[in-house]
């Protein structure tokens, strides 16, 4: 893969936010560049979810600024928010799939709202479902799927519109070990395809084995930001991790960029 120009996709600048009950986020600064994978780690209640919510601008900071692509939190309006959301993919712990829609329809909805042609939607959804390994379940309803499968559908929906950044809020929080590994692999694979990923989790031990950039959130501040070590180092670490190795193999047929470029 050719080296890309480094460019900030999402930036948080001097952000403060009162979370209530004497909790708050103070002076948060962090930038995510294109194609980066970042773990946001901290105990529950540390404000990870709030931070992500402010990034997709469902919530506003008390002070400071968030910039995602061309969208600035201080200037965004109800009219411009849909545009912002289309360049962000969002995944939650509780999947948030629509119960009375099939797997296919859940993903197609994300593309329908952008006014994509039906033929293109069909093509794209087929491709993504194959990519996440659930094409055979396209006509099933979410409740008939396992947690891990539901989360993969949710991820498929999140990447349907080719977002530049994927925000994942505890995406493995409800999953067992095997499903967790599958979901992580999938996120790595998507990241390898060029999409930046910011994943919030409270599971410090799990993320430490991967060698990605980790941002520690403690007492409302960024306690530590372990930048991604230079590429060679990551490669070495990826060799160590079977999860990452598989992710790398899988990324050969990625979905993110071939059509974009």
């Amino acid at each position, binding site marked *: 893969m050719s080296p890309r120009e480094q460019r900030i996709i999402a930036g948080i600048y001097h952000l403060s936010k009162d979370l209530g009950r004497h909790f708050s986020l103070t002076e948060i600064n962090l930038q995510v560049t294109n194609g980066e994978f970042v773990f946001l780690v901290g105990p529950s209640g540390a404000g990870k979810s709030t931070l992500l919510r402010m990034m997709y601008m*469902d919530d506003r900071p008390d002070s400071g600024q968030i910039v995602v692509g061309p969208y600035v939190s201080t200037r965004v309006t109800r009219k411009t928010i849909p545009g912002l959301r289309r360049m962000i993919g969002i995944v939650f712990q509780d999947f*948030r799939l629509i119960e009375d829609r099939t797997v296919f329809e859940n993903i197609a909805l994300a593309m*329908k709202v952008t006014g994509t042609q039906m033929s293109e939607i069909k093509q794209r959804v087929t491709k993504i479902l194959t990519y996440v390994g659930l094409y055979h379940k396209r006509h099933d309803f979410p409740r008939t799927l396992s947690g891990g499968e539901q989360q993969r559908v949710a991820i498929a929906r999140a990447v349907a519109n080719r977002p530049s950044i994927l925000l994942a809020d505890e995406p493995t929080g409800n999953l067992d070990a095997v499903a967790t590994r599958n979901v992580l692999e999938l996120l790595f694979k998507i990241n390898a395809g060029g999409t930046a990923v910011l994943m919030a989790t409270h599971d410090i031990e799990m993320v430490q084995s991967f060698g990605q950039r980790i941002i520690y959130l403690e007492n409302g501040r960024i306690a530590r930001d372990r930048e991604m070590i230079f590429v060679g180092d990551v490669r070495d670490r990826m060799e160590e991790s079977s999860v990452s190795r598989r992710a790398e193999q899988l990324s050969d047929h990625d979905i993110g960029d071939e059509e974009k470029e």
Partner: protein
Amino acid sequence: MNLRTARYMIDEMMINLGRRKGANAIAVIIMGLSLLILIVFLMVTLNLASLIDKTSEEMRLFVYLEDGLEREVTQKIQLKLMGLRGIDEVSFISKDEALTEFRETLGEESDLLDELVENPLPDAFRVKPKRGYITSEFLASIAAETEKWEGVEEVRFGKKWFERGERLAKGIYIIDLALGLIIFLSVIFVIYNTVRLTVLQRRTTIDVMKLVGATNAFIRIPFILEGALQGIAASLLAIVLLTAIYTFSSRYLPGLVFMRRDALAGFVVFCAILGALGSFSAMRRFLKL
């Protein structure tokens, strides 16, 4: 908004309607039944009004003439009567005709009249006021005026009875209006709440649509259409049930009046708007759309 987006919105509505048949059916039944109360009430009001109208329309003023008047005098009185404001029809009833009528009213007991040596009844004019003029004040003023005329013996219109009827009608209208207001408000409340619940049940759908970047219009319009359709379905249900009630009860109440077609069409439109507004305001208030 292009054509494709419009089609997707309609798709959304169809999926919403199709996938929750049970919930939708229950919503329509609840709304339909409460609308039935409203529409039955409207029909009762309509029938009351037409009954009161009909009763008062049968109101006649009788101008009794003195005995043995010249023909010209009688004619003059008739012309003067017809020249009065608010008079629709003036007909002459001779004393003989009056007696025949009286006989008919008595029926079998008309033998009693055979004993009479001469006809004691006077000649009279039966005066029918125009529709809008039937009030006790107007009739009293006519009576007072005509009674002064030469050749007029007496003018009668059942003043006491009529005034009592007028008061009763007024009372009925006031009660009807108050009741109508209460029913109307409760129906609006029921429909608003039912539609609101339908919207709230779809909270996830709406949240998801927001997250994937749907515009507010794209989220709202399918729901508003759905609310309107539910309103229409509920109003049609109410009309069908009303027709059944009407058919059944007109067996016992032959003069029963049914709602006019244009009123029914207006009712359907009203319910469609109510459903749409319910959806709209539910989304505004509870989902901050």
